[in-house]
């Protein structure tokens, strides 16, 4: 399984990957530091799941989600953001993302995401 993590923080990229690794086997992680690089990597590797931070330079997370969804409306996107505002969450969820998780990432959140991915893969 290929997971692309798009986050301008190297720390967050690694933390998210380390937590997810605890719950999902055989995952190849790819990383991008902003929306621009994220979209290029997305087109190049066509990941099974894309984790997107919202607050990023160049192209922000919301714009990246729009680009990805325009390319493939069925793309599986999980948002991991520090923004905890309800309005923002509702706006982003309207794009049809799989899940919206608030930072900081922790073991419990990673377990939930992994469960969600596992169920999605098994078609539940």
């Amino acid at each position, binding site marked *: 399984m290929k997971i692309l993590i798009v986050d301008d923080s190297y*720390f967050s990229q690694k933390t998210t990957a380390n937590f997810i690794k605890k719950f999902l086997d055989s995952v190849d992680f790819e990383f991008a530091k902003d929306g621009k690089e994220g979209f290029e990597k997305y087109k190049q590797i066509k990941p099974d799941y894309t984790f997107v931070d919202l*607050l*990023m330079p160049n192209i922000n997370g919301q714009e990246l989600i729009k680009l990805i969804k325009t390319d493939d409306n069925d793309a599986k996107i999980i948002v991991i953001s*520090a923004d905890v505002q309800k*309005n923002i969450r509702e*706006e982003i969820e309207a794009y049809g993302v799989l899940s919206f998780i*608030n930072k900081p990432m922790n073991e419990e959140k990673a377990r939930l995401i992994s469960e969600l991915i596992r169920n999605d893969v098994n078609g539940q």
Partner: protein
Amino acid sequence: MDNKQIRYDILKELFNVSVGQAASMLSEVVKKTILLDVPKIEIIKSDKELCELQTHLPAVLDGTLMISSITFQEQLTGEANLIFPAEKMKTFINLCLNESEQEMQYSDMHFTDMDFDIIREIGNIILNAIVGGLSNQIGIQLQYTLPEVQVFDRIDFEEDIQNKEYPYFLMLYITFDIGDTEIEGAVIVNLTLTSLKELMLIVTKIEDELYG
């Protein structure tokens, strides 16, 4: 990315999460969505030179400034200051009171007791979210005082902050876009040398944990 850059990245991200929480709380107060900008952070050594701080204070923070401060102690000792241009705070107070644009008196720079009360409360929310959020994430305990609000001229503020006995500043630049209003400010966290070392020790530990 070298070790120094990684530690800076960790620190920035810790504050990023806290600023996100602060924005959410503010959004509930003003009943509007708040758009955040990508945060920036710097560690500044404040030795003797007054110009040192001047170089780092954003240009928008000119003229009259409104500063909310809390001091904290226990595992870290220091003071956190939230700085916004007074003119923008007037607009922000009106947003908090849910007054319409037409009712706003942009030219009136007189602050009432009610205005100070609002700013004190807003400062309390933002600084608690930022300092408290940081302490939660890194697993330390802090005790802090109630916020104080003061109005300074930029120059007076620079002198005031540099006369205190904290040799290091963590300067965090924040921008809140509330509706059509952009409010650009900064959070300056003054730390003792021991506290800065303690904080960086924790950050280094987080960095080590990244690599298992």
